[in-house]
């Protein structure tokens, strides 16, 4: 997985690309820390460049949501397509995280 972060209009936008799997545990951990520590309340994962996500990837997104909620911050998932969008549906992720298409 690759990602880059930019802050626009009081929002943090994280553009994620490649494959998000269990192997990304270290980079996801670092990203969660960065998002928890920044100044913005709304954190948007822009996922149009993400090709593949697995169950561990879903689990890590849920951890990110939980950690951000504990700091009164919001996580929004945006732009998922193809396999990623279908997995979100199967996992009923929309019940737990705001998915903004």
């Amino acid at each position, binding site marked *: 997985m690759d990602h880059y972060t930019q802050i626009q209009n009081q929002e943090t936008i994280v553009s994620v690309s490649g*494959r998000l*799997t*269990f*192997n990304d*545990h*270290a980079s*996801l*951990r670092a990203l*969660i*820390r960065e998002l928890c520590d920044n100044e913005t309340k709304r954190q948007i994962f822009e996922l149009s460049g993400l090709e*593949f996500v*697995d*169950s*561990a990837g*879903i*689990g*890590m997104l*849920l*951890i990110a*949501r*939980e*950690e951000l909620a504990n700091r009164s911050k919001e996580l929004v998932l945006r732009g998922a397509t*193809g*396999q990623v969008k*279908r*997995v979100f549906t*199967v*996992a009923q992720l929309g019940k737990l995280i705001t998915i903004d298409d």
Partner: protein
Amino acid sequence: MIRWDHVPAASFVALHTIGLPVEYGRRLAALCGLPVWEAWLRAGRVGLEGSDRVVVLLAPDGDGELEESWTAPQVAWIEPGNLGDDAVRSLIDRALAKSLFVSLTSATANQVFLANRLMARLAQHRQIAKSRREDVELAVHEAISNALIHGNLQIEGFMGMNVTDLDAFSASFVDRLADERLAGRRVEVSFELDDRGVTVEVLDEGGGYLASDHPKQGARGRGLQLIAAAAEKVAILDGGRRIRTWFEL
């Protein structure tokens, strides 16, 4: 499009070694009664038939990542690791009966997008709709991840939804991969095509588990749910060390 769906388990046409000593490849090829890949090419057999199947022996140092290692006519990939010649030969014999076959150590399996490689290889022979290919790939990936993480490396997933669990997972993952005994345990994946679909089996060398021990929550449970969503049939065998799935294609 070449079809090799109904190729009988006759033989491989050659043995190809990547990243291993030439002498080792020659010895194993002789043991199996096969020509080495280079000799087979020199004999003018460049016009590949759909039924030409090549078995690859891979070094553990990441050469398996090379794109061409995973394309036709390769159908079986075996990392000898610390196995003796007879054990490698017996894996080659097992691979004969399969459409595609992989046996890697956990350390190497962790470095390769194995499910992606295998589905790409499968798609060279059978047309599969993109969405179906992705769904089957996810299910195969989840089965391989379970075999690797929970089976061979004996790591519990992150059950809770907090960074403490994620940190614990990361720490265990690094520790267990550094343990040669665990990192050397093998993951085996086989694809067997039939008229209507493909049977995929994933084996590990871990301690196994009882389905009743694992609630649907947690990492392994979530993976199994995704497998069940894509597969028409799922069977957990050998005390949890083998999962057999069938996907309609």
